[in-house]
């Protein structure tokens, strides 16, 4: 029989050491597919580290990949704090991106100082609207938001394709289902010469800090935590639960929308239907790895991005299938999950407890 008990005294070394150890164990597991594909794991690990930290370019690429994950991670973390299960960040991301190109791609020829904030605000609003609908359906009809947000992802993606073949289609795009590019002055400025990493990252970091502060220090955060931890008690205490849920829904959707803004106005310039390789879903993983803490989201996003970029680059260097990258990410995720558990709990093996006579 096994028993599980919370650890009484959690040491600092353990809190820090176990996640690192889990990541190392995940890499050890990665040796299995590597060997199966006939590659030398030791060389592969070297290539992996080189792929993330080997050059300024590599690091900048890792940060570029982490940026949308911070936004979607925050979106999930805040909503989940209120027990609002927003699985729809992927769709909200696209809503944000659609709004960004709708205003940014020439519809308004404003100076950058006006256009950039406008794009950011409208993108966030579109994402927020995308989360307001399921929240309304939940509070009005009791429709489960896990399902509605999940289904809305499909609907929004199909809607996006419709828009890209219709009103949003770039007339100069030679028929491709893609939007016109955002005006140059509407783009989020890059952070480094010749690199893709852009100021969306700064926005993400600032928002993570703000979220962390607001959650712990503001009345808004207080209400949010109370609603999430015990909605019945919060309601009894006079907190307007519906309003709190709507508030966090709008912020969560807005953050997911910003992920779309950041990708389209920071990186790609124009919108296609494959803007996001599942950033919305990965954001949930990021949020949960972070224990729903906004600052933790930043760390978790950097971690996931590092593993992906490193493993992806390694797969090329080693000549193994590039599907390896996702495999290593998923193994790391599962190992870190278990590691986090071991840091918090002790697993005690005990005998069957037969009494001595």
């Amino acid at each position, binding site marked *: 029989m*096994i*028993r*599980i*008990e919370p650890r009484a005294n959690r040491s600092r070394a353990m809190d820090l050491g176990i996640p690192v150890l889990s990541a190392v164990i995940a890499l050890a597991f990665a040796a299995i*597919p590597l060997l*199966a*594909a006939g590659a030398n794991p030791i060389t592969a690990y070297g290539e992996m580290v080189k792929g993330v930290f080997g050059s300024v370019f590599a690091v900048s690429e890792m940060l570029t990949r982490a940026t949308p994950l911070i936004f979607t991670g925050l979106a999930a973390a805040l909503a989940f704090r209120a027990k609002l*299960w927003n*699985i729809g960040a992927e769709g909200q991301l696209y809503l944000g991106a659609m709004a960004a190109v709708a205003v940014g791609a020439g519809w308004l020829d404003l100076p950058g100082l006006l256009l950039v904030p406008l794009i950011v605000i409208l993108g966030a609003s579109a994402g927020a609207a995308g989360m307001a609908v399921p929240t309304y*359906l939940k509070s009005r*009809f*009791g*429709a*489960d938001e*896990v*399902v*509605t947000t*999940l*289904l*809305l992802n*499909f*609907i929004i993606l*199909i*809607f996006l*394709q*419709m828009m890209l*073949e*219709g009103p949003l289609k770039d007339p100069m795009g030679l028929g491709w289902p893609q939007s016109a590019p955002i005006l140059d002055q509407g783009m989020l400025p890059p952070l480094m010469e010749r690199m893709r990493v852009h100021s969306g990252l700064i926005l993400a970091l600032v928002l993570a800090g703000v979220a962390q502060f607001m959650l712990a220090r503001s009345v808004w955060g207080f209400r949010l935590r109370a609603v999430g931890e015990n909605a019945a008690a919060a309601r009894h205490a006079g907190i307007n639960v519906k309003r709190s849920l709507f508030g966090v829904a709008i912020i969560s959707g807005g953050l997911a929308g910003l992920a779309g803004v950041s990708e389209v106005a920071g990186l790609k310039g124009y919108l296609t239907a494959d803007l996001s390789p599942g950033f919305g*879903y990965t954001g*949930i*993983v990021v949020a*949960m*790895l972070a224990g729903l803490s906004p600052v933790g989201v930043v760390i978790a996003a950097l971690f996931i991005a590092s593993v992906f970029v490193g493993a992806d680059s390694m797969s090329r260097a080693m000549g*193994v*299938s590039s*599907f*390896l990258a*996702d*495999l290593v*990410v*998923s*193994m790391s*995720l*599962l190992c870190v*999950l*278990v590691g986090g*558990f071991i840091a918090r709990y002790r697993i005690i093996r005990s005998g069957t407890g037969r009494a001595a006579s």
Partner: protein
Amino acid sequence: MMDLLNILMSESFWAASLRIATPLIFGVLGALICERAGVLNLGIEGIFVVGAMCGWMAVWLGAGLWGGVLVAALAGAFFGLLHAILTVPLGLSQHVSGLGITLFATSVSYFTYRTALPNVSSPPRIEPFQPLDLPILSDLPFLGPVLFQQTALTWLAIAMVGLVWYVLNRTALGVAIQAVGDNPDSVDAQGLSVYGLRIGAIVAGSALMALGGAFLTMSAFDAFFFGMVNGRGWVCIALVIFASWRPGKALLGALLFGAFDALQVRLQTEMGALVPGQVFLMAPYILSIIALVIAARSADYPRALLQPWFKGQR
């Protein structure tokens, strides 16, 4: 309007609905069993992929069709077991574990497929399940083509609906599964193992999900493609709630979705010039949400869903 009527009257439409519904039936039943025991299994999308890949690969390697079905179920059970270990004794977040399983199962399948077949330009094919050409039944008007020209896997899916209903509602095991999803303490206090019941339910449910994937490569088609599961697993997660966790309604929900989808392709071919094609593609999802909103009032969650349970803790 005439068109619509013609479509709804045609046997091929209903046959298509049932065909499209088949993988969903497996998936919803699997998800239903997991959730009845109190565990959400978002690994479903990945388990579909694993089922599709393993079932097909087993047949391709010469295991025979039913051998492939068995291999798919075992592969699904394996990933289910992984999810079960993470979420039941360890009590980790069911959302994250599920999404992690989906990513893991999908990437393992893809990596394995590619490593095994590095140089294919068109995927190898197998001899899939054939429609059961039953002597008299298949020739019945209407019912013949709709019901009796389906493959054995469709029949297996329908049989599973009955089996799952029977087990849940008529056996002690089913009662225990329902109890563990409502209040694990009730099961523990009666000397049954909460862990055992939950792990068992997840493993069995995941095996069923994998059959949904296997249907895609062994009946609906005859080869494995990357990305061919295409969100079908997620749809099942929605359908479970629509079905209020009941096998009978799960069948109904899957059939409705299948019918919407079958209608969608037909309407698109008829009216594609008038309305953007995407409107039809969206329809099944929008209708699912509407159905959910209508069904939500009566939705009765397994109360312990998403709640981890630890022995000897309060």
